[in-house]
């Protein structure tokens, strides 16, 4: 099977799924529709596997499969082709997308079984898959932007899936608009790049890059990177534009799992990694990215401590993990960021689906204060959730440990890293450990606070099977990218396959002059901090239940401040939205009413009066006509004689 | 009008004489009419005043002159007085254009110490190249007299009479014009004298290539245009509002038509106008169809010249002119008698019959006549000439 055919099939399957489901929107047979959706996503998974294997077969330096379908746009020297590229980075991404996508499709067959419009749900899901693949596989920025927008659209459609509930609908709107704001940045970045390099094709841009890095803030590369980064923050929910992600939990849980944990939010990171050659030449922007990433990580983790909704907690944890990825990218550890992206995708999707099955069991109840002691009632979900929990807090030898530790070490050690950033990272890791243990304790362990009328039951196999697979990967995926320091210690030299895989495409970080002893020390510190916080949370919520209350009293206003998400939403509303609205109403009241309306009224009145004036000419009096003829004659003659 | 004083004066005298001739004929015609109608209706007619009532004419003239000058109340005086005059003018003009006889040749002679060059005096008021057109023009003006009289006398009957009369004259003018076209085609000229000249010889014409000569028949127009003659004659009746067509002044319905309010001398002028038209009509008939002032076998200009060779040329031409004039007069009187005769024998047309006759029979027939004559002439001239 040639790679062109594979790739076209890869893209075609979700589109077909979307059209077929799309045409019978109103059908309620969840099983039939669900299986169709999952089948399509599975086909694209197989194709991506085939592609990756074919890619693997190629020699080291030519690992790139390009497919040119047709020439989409040709204006002057702007030449945009509907063409795709499969290389190391996009291979990783399509594996994650289609793999996890298929599992989530399978899970949502069960989850959406008694929903009114499953066909619509699966159609949107398939469309999302198609757009994500488009984003990831495109060989130029414009086609990526098309995917970028498509993904935004699908996230809006899926968040607001139950649009009858106004809150959910407005959440969808909020997500879409914040994304759009980010996309403006992305667009401006594209314009600057085109202006500078005359092309939007990745390969061509990277080939035309100047050798020396650009200092200062006004250079074209710096500006374009800055704009692209703003687009990334919009899409991947970083500090200024993260507000939409927590509210996006209004959508069905598998959606949150797929879109708001595994794939869409990572688009920003993927874009930066794809243009890593460009970003490296703008150190200031790299520094900015690192700072923003670290800040987001800590900030979201702090908010996560105070959340009572299970999905909100996971949402904030996603934001903070993304912060870590941006931190890694900021300091130049592109490989580490990609590795953490992959591991995070697995265990975060696992935990979201777990929370999905918990909610499913608890009949749509999401408040963890009303849960507790579910371990016995949902043994399978509890087991898989346990694995996810261990992975995320960085329990040694699990996937989370490897990737997070890699990032923390590179933050400390890399030339443009900084010990302060490392310290923030460690604090973030500590908070993560605390709120994840708090979540585990409140939902699964401890005394059951489940209200009488709800008696939770284990979800069916179709939902637990994906959980098991994800749990398996959460456990094992870490070994793909074993850091060097550990590899040397452990028996049998295990090569860092992931790094080696990405090596030709991503700029290399050099940790020269940093002793391995230092690395061991840092590793030790981060693990101990995580363990301490986990025990603390265990103690708070299981052993001494009254502790949290007293702690909250002590904290008082600070706790209120944090639990209300640092009043960011309110701040945006007062400082940005309201002035905007007032300004426009003022503009309408003053300018529109006074000037523009009056102008149009004037024109209308003028024509009417002119018409009335001219009307007298055609009043049927023949003698006047005769007079006009004569006058015409006379004027022409005088004109001729005089002229 | 002549180049010197003699010719000028002779011409002026001639115009007056001819006009007076026309005016004088009217009382004669009136008398003939009254006597004739009486004879037809087996009664005596005017015989009290003078032998056979001849001086009745004088009596009438005196009556007309002494009648009261009556002008109806509320009428338009100017139109009222203008109408009779306008009635008279067209007849006089038309009659003046018709040649009454051959022109008189006068050799050069000396008188009062100057010798006057030779003259030729045409035997009519004025010699016109396009005689026919002039006559038609003049007769078409007759309609105004009727209208003015009818409108001027502020009387409904007269207005209706006037409208009917003018409608009638206009519609019959059409067929009259067209039948005259037939005549013009035959003679190929507008000039009366040429027409008469063409009719002076024996009946001779080319027919399908061979020349036919009927010596005992004069070359009159009637033989070429029989249908034209009939149509023209009928049209003339209508033009002059003579009996079969005198609906406008039908006593029964419209009292006296447009000249109800007229009396006295104005009425007399209307009579002159009417009889003038009759005179013009009959003169035209004779000129077009009956050889005008020539009488082929006996009284032709050549034969007379031989007979009068003994006289001096001027006297000879004078005598021939007058004798031919007599011939012309006899013919005209014959037609006048027919007019009068028809008046007292035929009943009057109803107005719609009148109009139908005019538009639906006379007009088509005169068209046919004109077209047929044209076709024959083209055939004769082109094929065999």
């Amino acid at each position, binding site marked *: 099977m040639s790679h062109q055919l594979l790739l076209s099939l890869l893209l075609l399957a979700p589109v077909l799924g979307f059209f077929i489901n799309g045409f019978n929107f109103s059908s309620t047979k969840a099983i039939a529709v669900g299986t169709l959706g999952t089948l399509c996503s599975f086909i694209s998974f197989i194709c991506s596997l085939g592609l990756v294997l074919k890619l693997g077969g190629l020699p080291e330096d030519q690992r790139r499969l390009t497919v040119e379908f047709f020439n989409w746009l040709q204006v002057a020297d702007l030449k945009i082709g509907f063409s795709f590229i499969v290389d190391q980075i996009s291979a990783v991404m399509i594996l994650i997308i289609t793999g996890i996508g298929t599992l989530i499709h399978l899970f949502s067959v069960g989850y959406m079984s008694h929903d009114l419009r499953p066909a619509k749900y699966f159609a949107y899901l398939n469309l999302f898959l198609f757009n994500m693949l488009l984003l990831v596989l495109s060989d130029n920025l414009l086609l990526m932007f098309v995917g970028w927008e498509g993904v935004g659209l699908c996230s809006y459609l899926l968040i607001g899936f139950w649009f009858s509930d106004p809150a959910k609908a407005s959440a969808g709107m909020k997500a879409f608009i914040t994304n759009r704001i980010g996309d403006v940045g992305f667009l401006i970045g594209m314009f600057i790049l085109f202006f500078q390099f005359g092309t939007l094709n990745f390969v061509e841009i990277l080939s035309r890059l100047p050798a020396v890095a650009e200092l200062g803030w006004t250079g074209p590369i710096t500006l374009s990177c800055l704009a692209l980064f703003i687009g990334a923050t919009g899409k991947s929910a970083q500090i200024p534009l993260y507000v939409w992600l927590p509210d996006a939990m209004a959508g069905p849980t598998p959606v949150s799992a797929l879109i708001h944990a595994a794939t869409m939010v990572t688009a920003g990171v993927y874009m930066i990694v794809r243009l890593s050659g460009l970003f490296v030449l703008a150190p200031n922007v790299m520094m900015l990215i690192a700072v923003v990433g670290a800040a987001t990580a800590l900030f979201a983790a702090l908010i996560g401590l105070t959340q009572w909704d299970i999905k909100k907690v996971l949402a904030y944890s996603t934001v903070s993990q993304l912060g870590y990825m941006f931190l890694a990218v900021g300091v130049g550890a592109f490989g580490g960021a990609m590795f953490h992206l992959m591991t995070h995708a697995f265990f975060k999707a696992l935990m979201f689906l777990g929370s999905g099955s918990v909610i499913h069991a608890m009949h749509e109840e999401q408040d963890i204060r009303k849960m507790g002691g579910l371990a016995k009632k949902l043994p399978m979900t509890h087991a898989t959730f346990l694995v996810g929990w261990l992975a995320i807090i960085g329990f040694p030898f699990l996937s989370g440990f490897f990737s997070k530790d890699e990032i923390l070490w590179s933050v400390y050690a890399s030339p443009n890293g900084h010990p302060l950033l490392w310290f923030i990272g460690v604090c973030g890791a500590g908070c993560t450990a605390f709120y994840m243990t708090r979540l585990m304790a409140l939902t699964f362990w401890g005394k059951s606070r489940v209200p009488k009328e709800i008696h939770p039951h284990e979800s069916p196999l179709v939902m637990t099977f994906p959980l098991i697979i994800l749990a398996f990967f959460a456990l094992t995926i870490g070994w793909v990218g074993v850091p060097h320091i550990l590899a040397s210690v452990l028996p049998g030299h295990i090569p860092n396959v992931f790094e080696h895989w990405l090596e030709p495409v991503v700029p290399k970080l050099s940790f020269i002059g940093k002793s391995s002893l230092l690395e061991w020390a840092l590793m030790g510190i981060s693990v101990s901090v995580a363990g301490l916080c986990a025990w603390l949370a265990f103690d708070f919520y299981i052993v001494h239940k009254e502790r949290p209350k007293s702690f909250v009293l002590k904290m008082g206003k600070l706790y209120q401040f944090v639990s209300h998400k640092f009043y960011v939403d309110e701040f945006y509303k007062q400082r940005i939205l309201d002035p905007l609205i007032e300004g426009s109403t003022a503009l309408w009241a003053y300018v529109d009413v006074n000037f523009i309306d009056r102008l149009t009224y004037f024109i209308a009145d003028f024509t009417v009066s002119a018409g009335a004036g001219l009307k007298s000419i055609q009043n*049927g*009096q*023949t003698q006047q006509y005769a*007079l006009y003829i*004569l006058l015409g004659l006379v004027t022409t003659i005088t004109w001729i004689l005089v002229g | 009008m002549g180049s010197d004083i003699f010719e000028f004066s002779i011409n002026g005298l001639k115009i007056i004489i001819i006009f007076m001739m026309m005016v004088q004929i009217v009382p004669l015609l009136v008398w003939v009419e009254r006597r004739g109608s009486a004879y037809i209706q087996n009664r005596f007619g005017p015989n009290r005043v003078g032998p056979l009532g001849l001086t009745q004419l004088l009596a009438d003239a005196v009556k007309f002159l002494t009648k009261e000058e009556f002008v109806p109340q509320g009428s338009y005086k100017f139109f009222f007085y203008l109408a009779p005059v306008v009635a008279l003018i067209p007849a006089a003009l038309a009659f003046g254009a018709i040649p009454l006889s051959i022109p008189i040749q006068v050799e050069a002679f000396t008188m009062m110490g100057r010798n006057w060059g030779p003259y030729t005096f045409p035997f009519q008021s004025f010699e016109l190249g396009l005689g026919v057109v002039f006559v038609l023009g003049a007769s078409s003006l007759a309609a105004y007299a009727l209208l003015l009289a009818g409108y001027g006398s502020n009387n409904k009957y007269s207005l209706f009479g006037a409208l009917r009369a003018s409608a009638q004259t206009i519609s019959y003018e059409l067929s009259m014009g067209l039948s005259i076209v037939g005549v013009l085609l035959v003679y190929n000229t507008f000039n009366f004298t040429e027409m008469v000249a063409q009719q002076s010889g024996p009946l001779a014409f080319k027919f399908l290539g061979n020349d036919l000569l009927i010596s005992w028949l004069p070359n009159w127009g009637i033989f070429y245009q029989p249908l034209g003659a009939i149509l023209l004659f009928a049209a003339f009746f209508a033009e002059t509002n003579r009996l079969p067509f005198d609906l406008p002044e039908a006593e029964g319905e419209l009292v006296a038509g447009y000249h109800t309010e007229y009396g006295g001398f104005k009425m007399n002028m209307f009579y002159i106008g009417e009889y003038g038209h009759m005179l013009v009509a009959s003169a035209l008939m004779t000129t077009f169809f009956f050889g005008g002032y020539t009488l082929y076998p006996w009284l032709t200009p050549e034969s007379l010249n031989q007979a009068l060779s003994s006289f001096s040329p001027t006297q000879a031409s004078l005598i021939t002119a007058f004798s031919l004039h007599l011939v012309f007069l006899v013919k005209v009187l014959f037609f006048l008698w027919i007019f009068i005769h028809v008046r007292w024998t035929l009943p009057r047309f109803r107005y719609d019959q009148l109009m139908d006759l005019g538009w639906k029979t006379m007009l088509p027939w005169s068209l046919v006549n004109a077209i047929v004559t044209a076709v024959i002439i083209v055939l004769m001239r082109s094929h065999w000439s």
Partner: protein
Amino acid sequence: MQNIEAIGIGQNHYLILSAIIFSIGIMGVLFRKNIIMMLMSLELMLNAINLTFIAFGYFNGNLNGQIMVFFVMTLAAAEAAIGLAIAVMIYRKFNEVNIRYFEQMKG
């Protein structure tokens, strides 16, 4: 009446005369309110035009002028007929023959 050369009377005399009559005709059309009066002044204008045609024909020595007069006359007769028919209609409807009733015919 000999048609010897009309020394005194040139073409301009006729043209000026017809111009005057023509303008009188226009005045008639413009000033008179009675439809038939307008038709008459129109006839007056046409007569002036005929005069110019004949004058040009005579002084340029060809007969085209007279031919044109023929056509103008037929046209004038036709136009008068229709004009009078309309005037009769107007009179029958409004009992008055005035140009302002022409407005009724619009739209």
